[in-house]
């Protein structure tokens, strides 16, 4: 259990980052890792709580105290086994997860003191790759059953890997040219280098997962064909309908959804396509204060934008955890400054966009007014303002999944428009759903968790089908290998 009392003597250390001025000049990852001895000191701070709130705070149920202890004891080989037990892709989560575990860490009751869980996780998996401990784990026995997974984001990949390792034959259909979904095309290279994604995809392929890229299911392959080919179908197509901003001037050229910009930039950085939306030399306004917005800001800096402004509808959050609203161990609604804004640009809260204006059908300015910061966001008189805007990126979140394929498969949807699949099984026979398509836009950890649980559900369904009886309920879905 770490080192008794270490948390009193050793302070929390944040992950090292390259200086902003340096990192905006390239597309390499800017977050580094602590030296091993320092990292183990950080792991030593974990007290292996009787009630590990971190483990509860982690959607994957990562066995955090267990591997913290193993890192402290320099048993990385075991730590990676323990970590992989709940998490197929720690190198993704270790880079991209906002770490609700750390918000829930018991030491975080004293804000700012949480164990550096995310760094420990990343250190474990990076070391494991370096040491060659991450190898394909093909199934010992095959079942001979075929399962289709549509979509190769983290949910689809996790589901595919779990199924393949359990002996099923998995075919992944992906409409883009490579696997990874948003991790590959949405998240910038400087947050996760795509070779890392590809390395993991190659592990799946080596385990026997078959990838079919550029296949848009529902278009290139009909739903009926898919069902005929496979005993079960898993939909992991994400939640990709972006929220729009219906204000005057929205149809001007130069106003884009953030994801379109990020995709174009990702392909440009990868060298697989050129051109596309660019911020180079432009006054850029990013609307939406979330992570996607931040990634747009980061890209804009690297492209050499003339200026970058990020605006947010909501008011300025409090600087520290508001215990009346989001007390520990909840995710605190507090002011955070994104990596991208540390690299430059301006941020404004409580801003309502009133309209865009431009010339020649091209946007030139954004017009906004301050609001009260909370719903219903009444405008504050006398605060109207205009800013030059040559590229406007809408990073306002997503409304729900694309519906064509769902409709073809006759999958019922819930009130929010997501695929209704209480235990991952949809209303359509043998059709499952996992990830954002089922739960709406969410974190990568949720996606992986959904993929894993869905795989369990698929297997149970297939087993029952083999016995010509269908389970109507599962007693438990084990994801951490803890139940007996």
């Amino acid at each position, binding site marked *: 259990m770490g080192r*008794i*009392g270490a*948390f*009193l003597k050793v302070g929390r250390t944040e992950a090292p980052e390259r200086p902003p001025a340096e990192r905006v000049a390239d597309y390499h990852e800017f977050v580094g890792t602590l030296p091993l001895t320092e990292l183990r000191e950080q792991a030593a701070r974990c*007290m*292996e*709580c*009787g*009630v*590990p*709130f971190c*483990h*509860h*705070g982690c959607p994957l*149920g990562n*066995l955090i*105290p*267990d591997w913290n202890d193993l890192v402290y004891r320099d048993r990385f080989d075991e730590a990676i*086994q*323990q970590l992989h*037990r709940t998490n197929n892709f720690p190198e993704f989560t270790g880079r991209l997860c906002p770490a609700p575990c750390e918000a*829930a860490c*018991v*030491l975080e*009751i*004293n804000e700012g003191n949480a164990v550096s869980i995310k760094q420990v996780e990343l250190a474990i998996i990076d070391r494991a790759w370096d040491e060659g401990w991450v190898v394909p784990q093909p199934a*010992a026995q095959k079942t001979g059953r075929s399962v289709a997974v549509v979509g190769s984001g983290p949910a689809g990949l996790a589901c595919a890997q779990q199924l393949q390792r359990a002996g099923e034959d998995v075919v992944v259909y992906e409409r883009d040219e490579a696997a990874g979904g948003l991790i590959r095309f949405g998240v910038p290279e400087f947050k996760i280098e795509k070779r890392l994604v590809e390395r993991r995809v190659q592990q799946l392929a080596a385990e026997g997962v078959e990838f079919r890229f550029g296949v848009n299911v529902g278009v290139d392959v009909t739903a009926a064909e898919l069902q005929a080919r496979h005993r079960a179908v898993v939909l992991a197509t994400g939640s990709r309908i972006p929220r729009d901003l219906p204000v005057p001037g929205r149809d001007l050229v130069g106003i884009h959804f953030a994801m379109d910009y990020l995709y174009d930039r990702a392909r440009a950085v990868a060298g697989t396509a050129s051109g596309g939306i660019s911020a180079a030399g432009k006054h850029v306004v990013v609307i939406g204060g979330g992570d996607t917005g931040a990634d747009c800001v980061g890209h804009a800096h690297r492209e050499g934008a003339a200026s970058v402004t990020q605006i947010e509808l909501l008011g300025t959050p409090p600087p520290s955890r508001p*215990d*009346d609203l989001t*007390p*520990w*161990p*909840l995710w605190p609604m507090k002011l955070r400054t994104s990596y991208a804004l540390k690299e430059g640009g301006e941020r404004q809260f409580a801003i309502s966009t009133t309209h865009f204006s431009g010339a020649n059908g091209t946007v030139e300015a954004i017009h906004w007014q301050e609001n009260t910061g909370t719903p219903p966001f009444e405008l504050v008189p006398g605060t109207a303002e205009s800013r030059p805007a040559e590229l406007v990126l809408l990073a306002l979140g997503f409304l729900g999944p694309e519906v064509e394929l769902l409709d073809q498969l006759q999958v019922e949807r819930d009130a929010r428009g997501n695929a209704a699949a209480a235990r991952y099984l949809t209303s359509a026979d043998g059709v499952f759903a996992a990830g954002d398509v089922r739960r709406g836009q969410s974190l990568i950890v949720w996606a992986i968790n959904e993929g894993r649980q869905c795989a369990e559900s698929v297997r149970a369904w297939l087993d029952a089908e083999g016995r010509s009886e269908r389970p109507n309920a599962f007693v*438990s879905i*084990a*994801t*951490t*290998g*803890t*139940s*007996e």
Partner: protein
Amino acid sequence: MRKQGLYDPAFEHDACGVAFVARLDGVRSHETIAQALVALEHMEHRGAAGAEAETGDGAGILVQLPDTFLRSVVDFELPEAGRYGVAVCFLPRSAPRRAELEQLLERTVRAEGQVVLGWRDVPVDRRHAGSQASLFAPTIRQLFVGASSEAGDDPLAFERKLYVIRRVAEREAGPDLVIPSFSARTLVYKGMLTSPQLGRYFTDLADETMTSALALVHSRFSTNTFPSWELAHPYRMIAHNGEINTLRGNVNWIRARESQLASELFGSDSAKLAPIVRPGGSDTAVFDNVLELLVLSGRSLPHALMMMVPEAYGGRADVSDALRGFYRFHECLTEAWDGPAAIAFTDGTLIGATLDRNGLRPGRWLETTDGLVVLASETGVLDIPADRILRKGRLQPGKLFLVDLAQGRIVPDVEAKEEVAARKPYGEWFEREHVRLADLPPRTRAEHRDEPVRLLQLAFGYTQEDMKVMLAPLAVNGEEAIGSMGNDTPLAVLSNRRPLLYSYFKQLFAQVTNPPIDPIREAVVMSVQSLVGSEHNLLAETPAHARQLVIDNPILRDEELESLRQVDSDVFKAHTIDFTWPVAEGVDGLEPALERICAEADAALEEGSNILIVSDRNVGPDRVAMPSLLAVGAIHHHLVRAGTRLQAGLVVESGEPRSVQSVAVLIGYGAAAVNPYLMLATIGQLVDEGRIELDRATAEERALKAVGKGLLKTISKMGISTLSSYCGAQVFEAVGLSNELVDRHFTGTPSRIGGIGTGELAEGALTRHARAYPGNAGELLPVVGLYAWRRDGEHHQWNPETIALLQHAVRGGGRSTYEQFAAAVNDDSARRSTLRGLLRFRTAGDGGIPLDDVEPASEIVKRFSTGAMSLGSLSREAHETLAVAMNRIGGRSNTGEGGEDPERYLDERRSKIKQVASGRFGVNIDYLTNADEIQIKMAQGAKPGEGGQLPGHKVDAYIAGVRFTTPGVGLISPPPHHDIYSIEDLKQLIYDLRCANPGARISVKLVSEVGVGTVAAGVAKCNADHILISGHDGGTGASPISSILHAGVPWEIGLAETQQTLVLNGLRSRVWVQTDGQLKTGRDVVVAALLGADEMGFATAPLIATGCVMMRACHLNTCPVGIATQDPELRRRFTGQPEHVIEFFFHVAEDVREIMASLGIARFEDLVGRVDLLEADGALVHWQTRGIDLSNVLRIPDVPEGTPLRRTEAQVSPILHALDWRLIEAAAPALDDDTPVEATFAVRNVDRTVGGLLSHQVAKRRGRAGLPPGSVRFELRGSAGQSFGAWLAPGIELTLVGDANDYVGKGLSGGVVAVRPPGDAAYRAEENVIVGNTVLYGATSGRAFFRGVAGERFAVRNSGALAVVEGLGDHGCEYMTGGRVVVIGPTGRNFAAGMSGGIAYVLDDDRFAARCNTQLVALEPLEEADEIVVRSLLDEHVARTGSPVADALLADWDPARFTKVIPHDYKRALAVHGEARYSDQPISTGGGGFFTKESEEAA
């Protein structure tokens, strides 16, 4: 009364006062009888009465058969004395049935060739019995039986015949016929009477012609009041004060021996003797049954007693070789009957008493110059002038006190024992015949078929926690791991994890009716030696009886097991029984497998095997192992039933056991030794993998030692000191096993809520097996979240969701968040984890009553209190927050076992409940005087039956100040209260506390276990006002993990049993009943009320309200939220506020109100005991069909309408007639205006706690400082009752001229006590006993001087008093933490055990060092400063007692004659902190609540 609901008469306990009077010259007189009756009357306070004051628990007398008297009262001819016997018969009052039984007896007498002489009605005066007693009074008649003419001159032969007649008639008659005595030598009168009634009820006893040279009397205290004339003492040969802890095993073993019994003396009658033990008897009755058999079969009384209650002889230099040989030989014949016991015995010529090996009962004797010998539980029961007294003594641990009327003298212990030991060459026999396992040639396993360890681990259900939490600490630290914050996981039967069979068994533990033992500090009495082999006829003695294999540690290494298996001799033959079954047979394969192993055992015995090794080594891909405990239980009970059990010893070879609990249960159900091969292999694996940084041999060695140590702790918590007595003793309660399973394989084990059977056990085994096969040897073990929560692991009531919701609810979330919290606690899946969760309310059909009609929450919260958590276990901030919160709402907080800062008495930080625990830390008259309630902690939920310790580094200046100890000095809490070894002792402590504070209510805290209801009934009869039934699962203190998980049962069962028993006894109306243990919501509170609780305690939930996050690191001092820590940095992080706690309790109370409204009940008091408003929730109980049956818990006691179900009346105060009222009157001038007073009073042994009430008056008026020195000087003359000078406040000086009983100067708080014999005493005071046992227990300050010898445990837990004594018994200065003790006479064994502070100066006779326990102390010469202390104390001793011994020492002063005994810790602390003022300011006390592992013990 018969078994009903959870009440079972099998759990009754009794204890009492015992005495005898004997004339050495053997002259029969009526005076002897009259004196015995007087002695009996003077022990009335040791007995008890039930709901009705006039109905006693029992009193009786045994006399020599009064030939002259009997001749004068019968109208038929009697043969000469010795040629006839008298059967005293308790017969039914119904004439037809009586006639039947009388005919049966007569018939039997004739069938056995003897002569029916006639019947006599025993006259009784019914006015002298209580109405309850009268209602059930038997018709008492005496049957006179003449010896047949062919009977020879051997008087024993006739006794044997009478015995056979009795056994035959008793067996045929059943329970209707009771024969209290049937002898030509002795006669018994007894009944359900109070002590004074005995002599008046039986008018015979007043007849001057009734004479005897000896008389044995007894006054009984039973834990309940159900009518039983039979259970009064004396029995035929003994009267007993104490309790046999190993009874279940002793009875089982006797039963197993019956088939082998053969006695030349009984000849063909041997077959008529079984069953030896009469069903339905108490422990005493059973003991009497066996003793009688042994004696009639030709052993002398001393011989038989030395077999049954052997002294602890191991490691002692003062035991002769012959005697050692005797004990070793007889260990091969029978296990000890273990437990606190003062047994007075007689056969009509020999009369005497013996005491258990640990000296846990009192006994004082005297011999007069004119040949009278008196022995009694107390001194002073007869008024005998000092000038007639020749000598005085006490019963000593393991010693015989023997009076032989034939020889006309007291036979010394050594002489009596040596004579017995010399009868046969026992030692030679033993040496020649026994074989030591250690001497067998080492062997390796013949067939090696090694499954990969990982697969075996999976097959046996190993988890990562087992490795990390259980095994690694065993090997690394050599002791069991420590945990904190109780157990909030489901009972095994409610778990979805399919727990191992071991976890269905809950360890029983001693509380109130017998004491747990300290296996570390009192290791001198403990033994883990085990014997294997076949046993022989108990009634004979031959060299072959010693043919046993002696095993020093019952946990065997692999090679040791092989030695056993391949043992090659003509005496030993081992046979291995494979208890695996083919996986292919599935669940159905288990039953045939059980039949097969039993049959195989039979066959092996037929072939002459005497070591049966039950093994699961064959487990593998195709074979699955049944639970090893099932295999052991099945074979053990099968062989017991077959009468062949003693032909072989059982040894277990299994991969399953891996913990102290698992090994303990296996041994408890009959295994003599266990080879946990997978546990050892796993430890080896951990070593190989570098997880344990030791070599394999060391790791294994330590782990074995640790399990041995844990075993000792487990047996000692039941008060058992030898493993051989524990073997088969079944001191467990099964929770969640079906009656069928238990009856068949664990016969006799209490199991009260039904549960799973073999089918589920087979499924569990197969499920685990399927994890391993087909399997991957590289697979990780599962993490099951048993000790710490894991998302997909075991359910924990406190989990991230419930903890966060509760904290949010009291920090702004309000009622709606509380409701979310309650919903999370009470939702279906969570409810399935507790017994109360399986119940539901029968809500009113009419929708109940409006919420407004229900009494307000502000009234309900007054019934709530917070748990006993000491300052020391909690930070000052957390402790005070709870106190303030409870005071503001009118509830109660509890000091816990750590005292209280006197500053807090003055404001709202004062805890209303002041706890008194075994360590007595911080307990003085001031503390007690400032209580509203005084709570005696008999046990705590997290580790009932165990003590604890607070290491020195956690005792800072503040904690030390509050506890009256020295900063930096470690503090040990003993497992027992050293003034409560028995129920009547508790009665005395309650009396003491009433004196210390007559206004406070007295509470007794018990932990739920089977039989707690009868203990509670006893506690009610002890005059307690309040009884707390704690659940097993609560508990905030740190404890060994096996205790947290495996001791005690849920409060639901214990509370229901308590309620049912109290109601059935008519005692419920006198006491408040409280319960605690993981209570969280209004629902919990209402269930508790309906099951019988007036009040509820909460500990974990309010702590969580103040910020506790269940780190479970309380024992590490690293609590990150500043609650369970003394680290100043961490204490600053504490953010809890009283408002948080208040809000929690009000939410709960509002929740309660809503449920009350739905039940249609407006007043909380009307909920109490309304068990009819509860029912099993069919949906939940049915959900898993695990056979749970809660009907016993929900049983409505069968009592008349209107019987109170809750407290409705106060106890009658026992202190109304105390001597102290006169003392207070006399002290008025001093109390009122500091005018010094002096006076003289007469005192008797019935005057108890002299000075207590007076001290209360002093503390109340003058606070802690008390009166100026010398303000009150009283002289008392006579024999003082127990607790003389208890709590004595500053300024009071009591000088007792005479002698005193136990507990002199208990809790001495600044006063001065002196005891000296009268000036005309004929004996040498320094050679005679003047005060009893446990003197100065928990004394905090003051001085005491004893002109004579004290008993056992002198100055135990003294933390500040100064004392001089002229000799003392065993365990002197035990657990002492402060003060100074000067001993100017001989000391007993084990001096200074657990002594962490204070200094003793002992006059060294050169043998002292051998008798001193030097674990914690150093022996040094006196320095100059020491000389000043010793000389000044001796000066005062001379001044107060006139001691010529001290005078001579001073006159011829030579400091070299003294040895200074000083604890290492204390010496260090003194060097750092300087000498504290110890004369008037207490300097020391000890821990509680906050404990650490033993390795932190000062080395």
